[in-house]
């Protein structure tokens, strides 16, 4: 007896698997990088197996190295040399497939596993026992069982920490069914309700502290077992199908069946269920399978929801995640659980679901096995190129899509070189959303951007090939890239929620991931090099002409310089042509292209007034493009800040993205500029000018995932001004970001659709100077309306 239940995956006796050996696995898509694989873990559930392993991936990376100018070794006039090097990075692979393929998969792994010193495979899940012998025989690894709950929680913590859009609320019939949630920066405490055959309710307080505070025996097994008895339908998915077609009101006794209407004094509406299956006790009639399945689904979902709420209330928790095979991506159960939670908490608690819920056990088991490497000391990022993403599972939309026979679902996580943390200057980290537009919810914007990225694909492919002239197979790889990225775009058209909220940032990042996947680490490296070379030649002249201006004029010229520099973008074809021929002329041209004041967003007057005041203690500047932008636009601006007595921290990308200047490039550029400019030189020598990497390789900017070193520098230097430059960082992202210090967002809108959206036109200027409310003095009020 008792109502306390254990989280278990399904008993092996429920699955009648035949070993299907007929499938062949495409090695470049599934079980990738097996030759370097180590540390295996496996989670075998009632119907699905999840396999995890760690591999090292040989990556081509573009490195820049300064020529030694003293030794005259550099015969060319190039500023620095670019070399493509092999770099080894760590990657986690997670593959999900039907139990029927276990044997095939084990064979495949054995055949492709080259020299591994792995001796043990960590295993969890109800089916681990059943397949123990098979695994040991096939792989020659010792199966080491891990506690399911521990694995589940470890996995859950891992995805919540490392995947920003992991959690979502489900809203059927809404514009977007999946609404992704920010769980940052503090993921604890939370409640995990795991609905396996029974229900376990676990309170998680920290990485290492969790407690099973309760549970229920009425769970997925009850739905399945009782459902099979009532409807003679054997499969769980079929039962859900039945339920989604049924009407529970013919089986359940509703409030209105008892009252004739609502029970007004208690606020119970007539449609509420008073007694589940209440009508089948009195009515002498046959009930349809569909109706009974629906009634059963409601009964179980409501019951679980109610208990979850009672536990959440008792422990004062507001974040409640649901998982387990009863939930696992099934819209029907996500809907009924969501409904129940809303009902019982009157909307105070939202039911949360996880994109990678099915992988938690495998991830956790893997992490248990990898404890000596301490994977939790690193930050990890979802690799969009190697991950399948969340598939649409709505049975209304496409009933057959759920039949995933023969399909393999994958998740790949890259170990990031840098540990990522919040920018300490975010006003409210828990409500910070980097992206300005959520394309998951905005269908028009989604249409446009998907088209835009597809349209640009030819150009990207061409540039990728052109960047590797010495490599004959580059064209073939570029085609593979094209195929992969186009496929991703098509997937996203169907399932915009596949990788969390769809945003311009995620589209850009996906493209970068796909390029990397096919060894195009930096298609713009040569272009950037050439641009930087050219722009440097005009640096002194530019600075000189600025110095000749009076103070007031200079301040405005500096801002215009940054803006004009920002016009230079390889996306803006009109300017890029002139740039190549004559950068100085191009720069002047760009200034003329700029919108005249008043700009679209124009708080220049406030900024100018501020400049009359005391200097800032320290400015953090997130830079954008190489070439004219950084050298002729940003550097003179930085120089002025330094002259005012403001320390400057220049934050640039850790890895390449489009023509954005990377930290490696910026180091060299700054040295070269310092050689020509004593202000910059003094700044470097006196440590008032610092270069840090952002931790990112994206043309956009997520202020909640920045290099830990950057965060420390920002804190130590008491940074009181944040400058964000460029469309990717200041418009596509962070347009609405609220900071706890003064901030300046500068960008030129180089896309007419976006300009239109924001009420401007091509080359409209955004100059958004903001002061947080409490620092606002009465006479400096009146900020930008946006």
């Amino acid at each position, binding site marked *: *007896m*008792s*109502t*306390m*239940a*254990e989280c*278990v995956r399904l*008993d092996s*006796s429920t699955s009648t698997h035949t070993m299907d050996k007929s499938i062949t696995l495409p090695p470049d898509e599934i079980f990738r990088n097996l030759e370097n694989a180590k540390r295996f873990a496996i989670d075998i559930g009632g119907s699905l197996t999840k396999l995890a392993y760690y591999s090292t991936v040989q990556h081509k990376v573009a490195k820049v190295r300064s020529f030694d100018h003293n030794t005259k070794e550099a015969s060319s006039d190039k500023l620095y040399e670019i070399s493509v090097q092999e770099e080894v990075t760590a990657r986690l692979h997670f593959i999900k497939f039907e139990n029927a393929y276990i044997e095939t998969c084990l064979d495949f792994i054995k055949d492709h596993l080259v020299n591994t010193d792995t001796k043990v495979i960590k295993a969890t899940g*109800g089916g681990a026992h059943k397949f123990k012998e098979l695994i040991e025989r096939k792989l020659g690894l010792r199966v080491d069982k891990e506690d399911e*709950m521990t694995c589940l929680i470890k996995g859950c913590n891992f995805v919540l920490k490392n995947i920003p859009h992991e959690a979502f609320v489900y809203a059927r019939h809404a514009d977007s069914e999946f609404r992704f949630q920010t769980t940052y920066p503090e993921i604890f405490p939370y409640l995990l309700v795991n609905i396996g*055959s*029974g229900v376990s309710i676990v309170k998680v307080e920290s990485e290492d502290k969790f407690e*099973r505070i*309760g549970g229920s*025996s*009425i*769970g*997925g*097994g*009850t739905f*399945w*077992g*009782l459902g*099979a*008895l009532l409807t003679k339908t054997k499969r769980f998915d079929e039962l859900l199908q039945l339920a989604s077609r049924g009407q529970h009101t013919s*089986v*359940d*006794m509703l*409030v209105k*069946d*008892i009252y*004739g*209407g609502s*029970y007004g*004094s*208690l*606020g119970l509406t007539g449609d*509420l*269920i*008073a*007694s*589940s*299956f*209440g*009508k*089948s*006790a*009195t009515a002498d009639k046959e*009930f349809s399978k569909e109706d*009974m399945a629906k009634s059963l689904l409601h*009964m179980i979902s*409501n*019951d679980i929801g*109610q*208990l979850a709420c*009672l*536990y959440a209330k*008792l422990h004062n928790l507001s974040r409640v995640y649901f998982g387990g095979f009863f939930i696992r991506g099934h819209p029907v159960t996500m809907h009924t659980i969501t409904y129940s939670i809303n*009902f019982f908490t009157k909307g105070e608690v939202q039911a949360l679901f996880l994109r990678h819920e099915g992988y938690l056990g495998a991830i956790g088991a893997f992490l248990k096995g990898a404890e000596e490497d301490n994977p939790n000391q690193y930050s990890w990022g979802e690799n969009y190129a190697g991950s399948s993403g969340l598939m649409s599972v709505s049975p209304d939309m496409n009933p057959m899509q759920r039949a995933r026979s023969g399909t393999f679902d994958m998740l790949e996580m890259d170990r990031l070189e840098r540990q990522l943390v919040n920018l300490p200057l975010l006003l409210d980290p828990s409500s910070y959303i980097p992206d300005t537009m959520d394309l998951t919810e905005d269908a028009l914007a989604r249409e446009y951007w998907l088209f835009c990225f597809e349209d640009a694909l030819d150009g990207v492919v061409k540039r990728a090939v052109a960047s590797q002239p010495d490599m004959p197979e580059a064209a073939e790889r570029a085609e593979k890239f094209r195929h992969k990225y186009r496929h991703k775009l098509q997937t996203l058209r169907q399932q915009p929620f596949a990788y969390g909220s769809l945003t311009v940032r995620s589209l850009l990042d996906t493209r970068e991931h796909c390029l990397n996947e096919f060894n195009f680490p930096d298609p713009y490296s040569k272009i950037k090099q050439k641009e930087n070379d050219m722009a440097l030649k005009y640096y002194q002249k530019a600075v000189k002409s600025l110095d000749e201006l009076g103070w007031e004029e200079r301040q405005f010229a500096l801002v215009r310089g940054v803006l004009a520099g920002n016009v230079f973008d390889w996306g803006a074809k009109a300017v890029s042509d002139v740039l190549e021929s004559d950068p100085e002329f191009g720069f002047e041209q760009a200034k003329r292209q700029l919108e005249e004041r008043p700009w679209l967003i124009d708080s220049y007057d406030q900024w100018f007034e501020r400049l009359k005041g005391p200097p800032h203690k320290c400015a953090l500047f997130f830079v954008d493009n190489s070439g004219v932008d950084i050298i002729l636009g940003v550097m003179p601006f930085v120089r002025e800040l330094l002259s005012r007595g403001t320390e400057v921290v220049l934050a640039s990308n850790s890895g390449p993205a489009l023509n954005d200047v990377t930290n490696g490039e910026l180091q060299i550029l700054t040295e070269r500029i310092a050689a020509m400019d004593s202000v910059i030189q003094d700044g470097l020598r006196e440590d008032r000018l610092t270069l840090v990497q952002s931790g990112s390789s994206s043309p956009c900017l997520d202020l909640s995932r920045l290099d830990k070193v950057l965060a420390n520098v920002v804190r130590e230097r008491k940074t009181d001004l944040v400058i964000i430059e460029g469309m990717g960082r200041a418009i596509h992202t962070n347009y609405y970001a609220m900071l706890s210090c003064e901030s300046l967002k500068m960008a030129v809108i180089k896309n007419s659709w976006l300009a239109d959206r924001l009420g401007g036109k091509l080359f409209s200027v955004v100059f958004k100077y903001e002061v947080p409310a409490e620092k606002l003095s009465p006479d400096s009020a009146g900020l930008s309306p946006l």
Partner: protein
Amino acid sequence: MAFNGHQRDDDDGGIDEDETPTKQLRSEKEPHEPGNEASSSGGRATSERRSSNATPRLRRDSVKKTRPPFPWFGMDIGGTLVKLVYFEPKDITAEEEQEEVENLKSIRRYLTSNIAYGKTGIRDVHLELPDLTLCGRTGNLHFIRFPTHDLPAFLQMGRNKHFSSLHTTLCATGGGAYKFESDFRTMADLQLHKLDELDCLIRGVLYIDSVMSRGPSECYYFENPTDPDRCVQKPYTLENPYPLLLVNIGSGVSILAVYSENNYKRVTGTSLGGGTFLGLCCLLTGCSTFEEALEMASQGESTRVDKLVRDIYGGDYERFGLPGWAVASSFGNMMSKEKRESVSKEDLARATLVTITNNIGSITRMCALNENIERVVFVGNFLRVNTLSMKLLAYAMDYWSKGQLKALFLQHEGYFGAVGALLELLHPS
């Protein structure tokens, strides 16, 4: 019924043991519509106006004046059962006897000389309360029930016996009082006085407990609930009962937190109740009555149907303190075709009973923790002749709370709403 807490607070002074209508005077000063009172509920303040009540003499005068004419009925029309209490006066004087109209006599005789009515009506003779003084009259209180779907037959009988000619007020509670109000009017020419079911329930519980404290105990519990060999029913004195959690298990379940006789709130409820047990049993076993379902359940073995912790872990799941005998998944074994084919109807009935009962226990326990209440009184007709469920509840409360919670039961299980309705007739609030 599932749903969230509802705070209830009215001016009703409750029922006193000396059955004087203490509220009568007050209610004349503050008339309000009983049917709507719940909606105007506010905080949880108790009435402090009792002290202003009239002297005994005054009360006795008012008793006579306001005593309603016979017959005295209280009715609770639930989703599955209609519960009827009937007060049979035994102190009828010769004078009264002569005055008594024939219709009234006939109803009295019909009800008191039978123990079954029609095909489905039953008088629970063992629950009868003899020699009860109500409103200055002495008599027997009878407890009668019949299925709600036979209400038309009941109305027909009322019509045949010219019930409406008696000009009595018929106090009724339960959802059916609302649903069937017009049927009462059109079929039997009867005007219902509708009452809130939770008000009636609490009033009924407190009243029956108070009158029974003179005789055999109304309230009881199970001693040694976790030891089947030593588990015995023991009387319990429900003195200073507050706060208590009142769990009413009818077709659905309502859970109330009661802080005083006129201060309570509905904490929550669940749709997994008696109706679910019977409904599922009918579908799974082909049975058709509650008694049949219970009989089957008593012969079955739920562990063949449910998946236990030990079925998965081979024993206790020590890491989380789960004993091997605990149910991990209700009906979990039924996921397997072979096992579906090997279980009996009795096993299925037993598993259904255990599942529903334990779930009620689980939700109740959580409510008790959230409300910080240690005493739980289970009532409702699901518990009628259902010692199995009562012992399960007693066990569950005791085991999972490590002895903190006490499960209490009442002899008149499902009749409290009807009693509350009768009291409303005699002592309108």
